[in-house]
């Protein structure tokens, strides 16, 4: 075998920490921020209470939990659904008693994929899953609020569209709480066959300390780690959780905006969730784009007045871009900004009053993001390592996780990111073009959509009706 420079260097680097072991550093690197005290447990599983807000660059920013884990699973064939439902609920209720639903405690969100509904409760799913009113009207046929994931124009052809029955999201400032949650739900529970574990982290830099993503990337020795700004909330250097860019309260609920019809009210208080894994080319981002270009790419090409090295860039309702502005930018600069393009579909066009009387003003963000950085490549563990392309070497990426009222609503946002705007305008870009925002440094490896039932129906939804 010919000895190449790459092989020799790979040998030299063998002492670097593998993706699995790197998370053992988290305990030593992170310290938990102070958090507001307990809040009541909401009907919604996807909402976390006790979220601290801080001001950065004069912009109000939510401080997300530091540690995240997603565990996916399939329901073992032949499972007694009602017994499994009772058992999972018993385990979740025990966690509820032990931890507050806050970053200081433990956020637990159980989401269910179409394979579960198709395999285990197909008839009930047909009659009970919410229907996407907007998509049904436009396509002139019934469209479920929960859709199979699709590959988007900028996705690689080999992006895996997953078929998990369920996904459990665990979030906390304390990694011990996340561990406890994972064990409490899965250990010794025969009805669930785990398919993957995905781990990650976010934030930790607002106090001026080196952030968790920066520390973890350096410790793992991933390419470009040194280029991440010291206090960056995420690897790509910009803050993603400013309050104005995050859906607030119940806006992402199935019922709030009228995007979906919930025929039996079973999913009232629920939402849909998209989960994907995206690799991030940090060297490509920081060496190929200077700060001004990164701002243009992340936000919009004509954005001015951003302080050099700022990490939080205001995206309030009055900063929202319209389709025409995005199109003008495309023709003028040959580029679209990531945020600007998505805003054409992710922000409210008109004032809306929710069923609970909450008023949502035009320009309000709808999606509730819960994404986090990772060194998984692509997962921390997989039951199908070959299909998933598992590697022991750590790699910079993001487990992208977002709550939208319907799967189609997420699809609209993601298409806008690729230049397919809500009014049908298509702003075409060649593959990997620098002009299409973040996409040139992102590669999506996996996708799946889920429905997140309300807390009352979080365990094996519809099984009690079967």
């Amino acid at each position: 075998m010919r000895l190449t420079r790459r092989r020799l260097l790979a040998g030299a680097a063998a002492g670097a920490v593998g993706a699995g072991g790197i998370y053992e550093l988290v305990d030593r690197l992170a310290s938990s921020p102070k958090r507001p005290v307990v809040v009541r447990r909401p009907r919604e599983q996807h909402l976390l209470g006790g979220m601290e807000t801080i001001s950065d660059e004069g912009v109000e920013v939510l401080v997300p939990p530091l540690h995240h884990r997603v565990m996916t699973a399939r329901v073992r064939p032949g499972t007694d659904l009602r017994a499994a439902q009772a058992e999972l609920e018993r385990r979740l209720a025990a966690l509820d008693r032990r931890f507050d639903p806050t970053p200081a405690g433990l956020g637990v969100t159980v989401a269910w994929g179409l394979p579960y509904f198709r395999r285990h409760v197909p008839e009930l799913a047909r009659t009970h899953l919410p229907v996407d009113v907007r998509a049904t009207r436009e396509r002139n046929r019934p469209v479920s609020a929960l859709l199979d994931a699709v590959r988007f124009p900028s996705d690689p052809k080999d992006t895996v569209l997953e078929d998990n029955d369920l996904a459990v999201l665990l979030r906390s400032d304390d990694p011990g709480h996340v561990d406890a949650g994972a064990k409490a739900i899965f250990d010794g529970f025969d009805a669930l066959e785990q398919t993957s574990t995905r781990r990650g982290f976010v934030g930790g830099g607002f106090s001026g300390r080196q952030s968790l993503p920066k520390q973890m990337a350096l410790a793992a020795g991933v390419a470009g780690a040194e280029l991440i700004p010291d206090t960056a909330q995420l690897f790509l250097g910009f803050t993603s959780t400013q309050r104005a860019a995050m859906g607030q309260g119940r806006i992402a609920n199935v019922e709030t905006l009228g995007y979906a019809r919930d025929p039996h009210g079973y999913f009232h208080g629920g939402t849909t969730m998209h989960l994907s894994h995206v690799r991030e080319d940090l060297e490509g981002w920081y060496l190929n784009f200077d700060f001004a270009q990164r701002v243009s790419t992340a936000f919009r090409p004509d954005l001015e007045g951003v302080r050099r090295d700022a990490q939080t860039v205001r995206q309030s309702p009055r900063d929202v871009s319209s389709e025409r502005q995005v199109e003008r930018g495309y023709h003028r600069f040959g580029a679209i900004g990531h945020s600007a393009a998505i805003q054409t579909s992710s922000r409210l066009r008109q004032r809306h009053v929710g069923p609970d009387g909450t008023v949502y003003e035009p320009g309000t963000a709808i999606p509730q993001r819960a994404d986090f950085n990772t060194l998984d490549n692509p997962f921390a563990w997989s039951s199908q390592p070959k299909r998933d392309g598992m590697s022991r070497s750590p790699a910079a990426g993001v487990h992208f996780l977002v709550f939208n009222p319907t799967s189609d609503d997420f699809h609209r946002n993601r298409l806008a990111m690729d230049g397919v705007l809500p009014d049908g305008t298509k702003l075409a870009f060649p593959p990997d073009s620098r002009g299409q925002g973040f996409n040139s440094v992102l590669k999506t490896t996996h996708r799946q959509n889920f429905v997140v039932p309300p807390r009352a129906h979080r365990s094996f939804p519809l099984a009690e009706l079967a």
Partner: protein
Amino acid sequence: MRKIGVVSLAVLAAAVALVASGCGADRAVEPAAKAAARAGCPAHALAGWRRLASRIHAPVYCPTWMPDPFDGVIGGQWNTIDSVSPDRSYLVGFIWLEAGSGELHVNLRGYPGRTRVPSCVDVNTVNGVTRRSKIPCFSDPTGHRRVAGIDATVYTANQDADRWHVLYAWRHDGSLYTLSQHVAVPLTYRKVVADLDRMLRSLVLVRPSS
């Protein structure tokens, strides 16, 4: 523009020894680099650098240490770019490229009689429409390196032949000089910075022939 070279196993082993040595070990060899710098531009390389200095009528910097397999010889096996523009600015590049293994690429530049960061043209072609805009050739300053009378600014986002390079730029006697290295497999940013630090320490000024 690029030449593909295949390196012998012995040369590779030497290269790996250097790479594997990392930043800490780099400090250990610093005296050798300093000694080389004190000793002046190596005899086998001096003629080329002196010729360049004479062509541009200004001093140039000769590297007395470069990452293996480079030897710093203008016109040598690894020197693939030797260019002087009408404004007397120069670009000397060294490239080692092995398909499937990776690449080493080091550039040295000089801009006689001017110290401002030059402008480059950013070309963006989308759907057959080409847009050109002027941008700084070197941007995103992230720090300084001060060695042997040189105060170099570290730039991480650079253009043209220095795209995807980390670049050190400094001023001397009314002129701007740069040294850059490509961050490419199998090298990491950290290793490239270590290489640049060592090359910077090894630079010696070569003046035009009188």
